[in-house]
């Protein structure tokens, strides 16, 4: 029996009573049980809870008949809070943390009839590009188990790529949905900043973080975004813009679309196989009627340093709450250390808790961020970075609003395909530089999508990234969907997942 693998197929099958939600759920859990030991995509699988939920949907199917995600198994990145379910951010610091509340997106998935099956691995506190910085070990790329799946939403991307669930949510601070999407061969969408509520997302960098879907097709990503998007009274940075039905935008018609290509930005450091795949993908869109034009983004080359100043500054503050006082990990403080005052005991507890609770990359970023916000350095680093951020935003605004404005800007999502696990662990700077094409969208708050566009000779997936206008996810999804109609990449499964 072949399994329905898209959201739409599963939902329609459950809705038509061809399958029960419980059957779909058990099958997903079976596949997770079979493949997760190799992939390490999940930190936590909530099998009993998921089956109970699916059975409840089946029992009350009349009430749920119109639910847009009826019976669809969903995986959640483990930095999205789930009431009653351990939420770790892949950190020893939160190893045993069980939130008493759910993220807004989780509530929305519940209301849409989804069945949450588990929490996926990530780089600790979403800091990294490979899912190697996890307290629970690296996730492996389903296409090549010795390689990284990308990060930080590596567990979510691997889960969808290996067909464990048709939908996973990730979070994207500098490419953390799009880059693992590209390296695992699935669609990853980072919405406009403010499009999706961040309430209940464990913060990395508040002005950059956005939650978004990882799915097999642009259509599924559109469906998922329609559900999770929208204003939220609990998130003051969520936007009031109404949410369209994004699936309605998927007309296949891209004849009026103008796609900008920042040639100069792409001149250096892109793997030739990646370049060829991107060029071929753009040819497909041109043959469908889209117009390709060159655009200049003169300040985009500064995006990496700007990003690592802004993100680390915010992170150093966001992670201050993990102090061992109220929840999470607290280092044992032996009584016989000659501590004479309560204050000394407190300082020792803070130091040990944070030294033992955080991994090396998180500590590195806390130190960087603390430094750039310090008296005497703030103006030179943090403030300067914010000024350059404004210049990058202006570049994009001009590209999207000039007389010869474009509707989307195309780039590779990642300059290289997935690299071997362990290759860059000792070279954080090289790891940071791989974010060159993704971080701009976060700095300027624009939506961006990664869509699978081919493979290297060694069968490693490659992703095409399209960045769009503020709140114009619809155009990105239409372009991605049109591209999928003329290509077969999104239908391919890695050997490990073939049935």
């Amino acid at each position: 029996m072949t399994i329905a693998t898209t959201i739409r197929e599963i939902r329609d099958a459950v809705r038509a009573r061809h399958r029960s939600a419980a059957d779909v759920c058990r099958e997903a859990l079976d596949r997770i049980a079979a493949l997760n030991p190799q992939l390490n995509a999940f930190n936590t699988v909530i099998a009993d809870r998921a089956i109970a939920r699916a059975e409840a949907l089946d029992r009350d199917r009349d009430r749920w008949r119109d639910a847009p995600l009826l019976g669809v198994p969903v995986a959640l990145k483990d930095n999205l809070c789930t009431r009653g379910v351990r939420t770790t951010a892949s950190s020893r610091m939160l190893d045993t943390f069980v939130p008493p509340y759910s993220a807004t997106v989780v509530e929305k998935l519940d209301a849409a009839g989804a069945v949450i099956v588990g929490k996926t691995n990530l780089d600790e506190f979403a800091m990294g590009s490979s899912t190697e910085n996890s307290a629970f070990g690296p996730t492996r790329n389903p296409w090549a188990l010795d390689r990284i799946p990308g990060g930080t939403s590596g567990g979510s991307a691997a889960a969808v790529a290996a067909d464990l669930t048709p939908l996973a949510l990730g979070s994207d601070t500098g490419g953390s949905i799009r880059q693992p999407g590209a390296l695992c061969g699935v669609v990853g969408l980072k919405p406009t900043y403010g499009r999706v509520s961040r309430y209940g997302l464990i913060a990395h960098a508040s002005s950059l973080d956005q939650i978004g879907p990882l799915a097999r097709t642009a259509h599924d990503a559109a469906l998922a975004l329609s559900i999770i998007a929208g204003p939220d009274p609990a998130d003051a940075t969520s936007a009031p813009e109404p949410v369209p039905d994004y699936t309605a935008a998927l007309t296949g018609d891209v004849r009026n679309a103008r796609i900008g290509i920042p040639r100069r930005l792409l001149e250096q450091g892109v793997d030739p196989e990646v370049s060829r795949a991107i060029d071929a993908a753009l040819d497909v869109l041109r043959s469908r009627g889209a117009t390709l034009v060159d655009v200049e983004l003169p300040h985009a080359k500064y995006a990496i340093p700007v990003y690592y100043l802004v993100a680390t500054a915010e992170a150093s503050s966001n992670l201050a709450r993990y102090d061992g006082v109220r929840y999470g990990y607290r280092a044992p403080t032996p009584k016989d250390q000659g501590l004479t005052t309560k204050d000394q005991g407190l300082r020792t507890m803070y130091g040990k808790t944070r030294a033992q609770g955080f991994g090396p990359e998180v500590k590195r970023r806390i130190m960087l961020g603390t430094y750039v916000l310090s008296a005497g350095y703030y103006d030179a680093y943090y403030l300067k970075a914010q000024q350059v951020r404004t210049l990058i935003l202006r570049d994009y605004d001009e590209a999207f609003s000039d007389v010869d404005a474009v509707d989307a800007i195309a780039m590779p999502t990642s300059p290289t395909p997935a690299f071997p696990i362990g290759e860059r662990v000792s070279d954080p700077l090289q790891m940071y530089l791989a974010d060159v094409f993704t971080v701009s969208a976060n700095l300027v708050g624009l939506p961006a999508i990664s869509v699978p566009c081919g493979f290297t000779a060694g069968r490693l997936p490659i992703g095409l990234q399209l960045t769009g206008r503020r709140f114009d996810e619809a155009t990105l999804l239409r372009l991605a969907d049109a591209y999928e109609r003329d290509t077969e990449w999104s239908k391919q499964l890695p050997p490990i997942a073939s049935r």
Partner: protein
Amino acid sequence: MDYEAVIGLEIHAQLLTASKIFCGCSAAFGAPPNTHVCPVCLGLPGALPVLNRAAVDDAIRAALALGCTIHETSIFARKNYFYPDLPKGYQISQYEQPLATDGEMDGVGIIRVHLEEDAGKSLHEGFPDSDRKTYVDYNRSGVPLIEIVTQPDLRSAADAAEFFSRLRSVLVWLGVNDGNMEEGSLRCDANVSVRPVGAQNLGTKAEVKNLNSFRFLQKALEHEIARQIGVISEGGRVVQETRLWDSAAGRTVSMRSKEEAHDYRYFPEPDLPPVVVDANRVQQIRSAMPELPGARRRRFVEQYALPEYDAGQLTQTRALADYFESAVAAGAPAKLSSNWIMGELARKLKEEDRGIDASPLTASRLAELIALVNNGTISGSIAKDVFEKMFASGRTAGEIVAAEGLTQIDDESQIVGLIADVLSRHADAVAQYRGGKTTTFGFLVGQVMKAAAGKANPKRVNELLRKALGA
């Protein structure tokens, strides 16, 4: 050499909003520990702040009363430091672009008024294991505060205490703060330096904390000023530092030096958009502002011809001033109302430890009592008894006077009868009076009033007695 002190104050006032500044939890004081808490004010992972606009409105009220300019756009910032009562590891405050700036009150410049959240409360004492442990109550975490920073315009401890007291009345008057220093809902720190009289440059300052009563504020500043003058007189230099008032020891002690001062690493709070206050909202708030104590004091003098002293006393609180004006509106003459309110009523309220709002005697009933005296229905001395009875029973003056037959005796024949009786019983006093000892007259008046059980009209008694004595 003569020195003068230079003092600026930093005042933290909790706003009286129903809920906290960034979440829906109750901001009420006194609940059992950690019962007014939620993911937001506990700083749980993923929780986000949402601004309570009622706190902004209250802060605008306070800033307007202090003559400040309200800025259309202000920005929240994070003040980063570690302490167990600060659940997020940062306090959301305002730094570079505060809500309001550039005000003045009673000749003291106001640098800024900004909004921020309070921290929880560390309980270092009072538990069996307090020698080893500190407990934290997060009920206060996220309660809205305004911080008011004055210019260094104050020149003595007494001036500082007086200014702080007036500021307190204004905040309480506006209904934005309860003025309760013991519960910590109003707190004050002071920046103090000294310099030779006539010098232009400021001396090195010390920040003095823990001034949680008016008395401590004044004593701590007196001590600190004397300490700094002592240091300089002996050829030493004042060190820039934070000092703590130790009320038990009666002195300030060093808490941390400038070198140990925190680097708070302020940066704009990315979880909150800028606070935008449009001019219409400011205008609405301004037009709905109550008349402030200073203005009301001046009006009482002009409109009611009250002495300055009376006007000052009656405008101590808004409720008291309202009470006074209600009594006048009910027909009582202003000065008589003032006398009754500052005299009998204040005494009774103090005796029973009640506020004017809890007076069992309403302003209109007091006005009725005053009217009974004024129109001669009862005498002044009877009125005091009636007042006591009104206060105790809640009955009106009219009811008490009617029920107890206290109406003043004006009838000439009745008074003449009483006089005749007294004169016949005190022939010797009459003789003394007629012999030239006129002081005996007072004794005889007293006897007549006594015979009348205090109810006789004293003016008529005087007239008729004089007549009867044939003077």
